């Protein structure tokens, strides 16, 4: 179907082919499907992934991915709730795993902006770097990024009781790291910095929930005015051992070396950073 808006081609839906015309791009054997994504637009890939999942496929391998958005977003199946494993080769586009409903995505390549945007559960692993607003408003599950991330990472991440999202970044981050954080656990490892300090400014500005752990050098002026440095507790080390341990295993780092570094624990100083701004 031709979609156009006021004579302009619809960037998203223009020339999208019907499912029956693209089935040949998927190769299903048992519960594994392999999809050649190199000639598919994002809606076609998600159409195919949805189709595969409904056919009983539990593992999908996407090859030749190059900039297609929203991979994994359409996989909401309320009942039953199959959990898929999605392997991506190439470079997925923005909003990878947005609103993700409990599936596991492994990316062999770099990711762009909005990885795990408002993700509800599941896991995203990126064997490479990621762009801005990684884990924005994330609600549950885990994201592990091997290298660096961009601006405003983990902005407005949330948590409730036992649903606590976790983000581990192996490299460093840009400004506004953990901005507005309302919950969750964020770990920044700085493994590619050597002896150089992190450069991000306004770390945790507006933060009012959750905890951040930063390995490596950070000066006080780099922190937002709403966060404070507190002492590490036993619980914290247990959390780091689990998630950083997994991180090292998956991406091939030396666990003891990584965990042996200096960790800075940052917490918001108040749950109500702006309570005093208003006249009642």
């Amino acid at each position, binding site marked *: 179907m031709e979609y156009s808006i006021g004579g302009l081609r619809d960037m998203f839906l223009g020339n999208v082919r019907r499912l029956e015309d693209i089935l040949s791009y998927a190769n299903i054997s048992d519960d594994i499907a392999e999809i050649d994504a190199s000639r598919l637009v994002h809606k076609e890939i998600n159409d195919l992934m949805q189709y595969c999942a409904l056919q009983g496929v539990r593992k999908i391998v996407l090859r030749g991915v190059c900039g297609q*958005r929203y991979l994994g977003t359409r996989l909401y199946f309320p009942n039953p709730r199959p959990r898929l494993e999605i392997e991506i080769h190439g470079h997925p586009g923005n*909003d990878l795993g947005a609103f993700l409903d409990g599936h596991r995505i492994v990316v062999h390549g770099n990711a762009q902006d909005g990885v795990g945007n408002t993700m509800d559960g599941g896991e995203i692993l990126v064997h490479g770097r990621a762009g801005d607003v990684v884990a924005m408003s994330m609600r549950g599950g885990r994201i592990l990024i091997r290298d660096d991330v961009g601006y405003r990472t983990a902005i407005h991440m949330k948590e409730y009781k036992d649903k606590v999202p976790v983000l581990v970044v192996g490299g460093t981050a840009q400004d506004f790291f953990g901005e507005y954080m309302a919950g969750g656990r964020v770990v920044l490892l700085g493994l590619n910095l050597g002896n150089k300090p992190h450069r991000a400014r306004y770390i945790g500005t507006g933060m009012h929930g959750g905890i951040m752990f930063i390995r490596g050098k950070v000066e006080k002026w780099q922190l937002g005015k709403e966060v404070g440095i507190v002492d590490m507790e036993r619980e914290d080390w247990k959390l780091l051992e689990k998630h950083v341990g997994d991180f090292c295993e998956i991406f091939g780092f030396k666990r003891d070396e990584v965990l042996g570094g200096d960790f800075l624990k940052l917490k918001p100083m108040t749950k109500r950073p702006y309570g005093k701004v208003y006249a009642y």
Partner: protein
Amino acid sequence: MVELVRGEEMFSHMLPEFIVERREDRCIRCRVCERQCAFEVHKYDKELDMVFSDEKKCVGCQRCAVLCPTDALVIRPHPGEYRRNANWTRERIQDLKKQAETGGVILTGSGNDKPYRIYWDHIVLNASQVTNPSIDPLREPMELRTFLGRKPDALELRFNGGDYEDVEVATELYPNVMIETPMVFSAMSYGAISYQAFKSLAMAASEYGTLFNTGEGGLPKELRKYGKNAIVQCASGRFGVDPEYLNCAAVVEIKIGQGAKPGIGGHLPGEKVTLPISVTRMIPEGTDALSPAPQHDIYSIEDLSMLIYALKEATNYETPVSVKIAAVHNVAAIASGMVRAGADIIAIDGLRGGTGAAPKIIRDNVGIPIELALAAVDRRLREEGIRNKCSILVAGGFRCSADVVKAIALGADAVYIGTPALVAMGCTLCQKCYTGKCNWGICTQDPYLSRRLNPEIASKRLVNLLRGWSLEIKEMLGGMGINAVESLRGNREHLRGVGLEDWELEVLGIKGAGE
């Protein structure tokens, strides 16, 4: 932050806003007023067997006056005045004193109460006389049913067989939502309003066949059965946005802005984040629920497009996506961009739109009237040939069914009603929503107060309101000789301006009365 010197260390210079008059001959000391007032105005003195009133605390919500069994109470604006001054009004002086005592941003609730020109009151409607018969809606069919969503550029029909009996639409249609009357309830979040008020809106929308809007506070699990009557919001705080929330809804709305506070975010104060609120919003109890001013994944029309299609992906392209903005300068160009970005519905909230809490300075000074914004947007989209690509929902200060009819004639598909719905439930526009002490049980999370609102009864009041307005709309349509609200949409020939300047008529796209 500089530590502020708080008011409690000073003697307050504020005048009371209301005077409480108790007719002693009627008062039976039943203490209803004392129990009803969360602001603690009334106090019974056992020894003296008298009820005293602390007028400085009175907000004029009239709860005590309405519930007093002997009508012993009269609450009216305080007659105490400063020297008359057209520039330095009582409100200006009081605000100055309040800020001198607190050093804070003055908060308020409800919609803009300043005397900006209300264009609805300068637009009159047409009726049929001689040349065109009017229609009696009591005896003839009258269609108010409205479909919200993107419409195709053209309809291709397929005739099977030669008898024209078996016809089907060959064009692939976009998802649309049917509502029985061109009115839906405005976005009011669970958190801003009480569970009871929220549920009342859901029940009323479901019963009447229209929609309510969850605002950005999520939809509690047990209310998801009302999902097919819900517009669910995905706003900058992304509170309560999970895959089920998106998929249970009739419409998903991206909230960019709000008429009462364009350009700024929202702060639900920690004291309103009680346990049930924290479950729905997914933040710890007592934490401020902060909605950032921008959506941090949207800094441009292209980015908006990205979120629109993310939501379409998340809902399997089965749900129309709405984008709500505040009416501001260049609203027509912005709306055009929104439609091109893929919005199926564009919602515009005007200068007089309500709020649960907003800085007063923003509420009273930012944005443009909805009448002008609507006319500008409708014209721009028609000129660009993309008006069919979206439905237009307008919000912000609709007071009666005539306002709705005039809005539809100016190009709206349907109208958001917020304040009328609140008033139907009991609200008296005291503007103290932000205190969380609403005596009417609407804008509060205190269970003692919110219990006062019975959803069975409140939803009945809301349904009555929709029914009354719908009947009036049918009367007005019939008078114009129109039998379907579709035929009124953008039909400016049925409007005339009274007392408007040329430029205003030009923007509204209507003629002056007498022409």
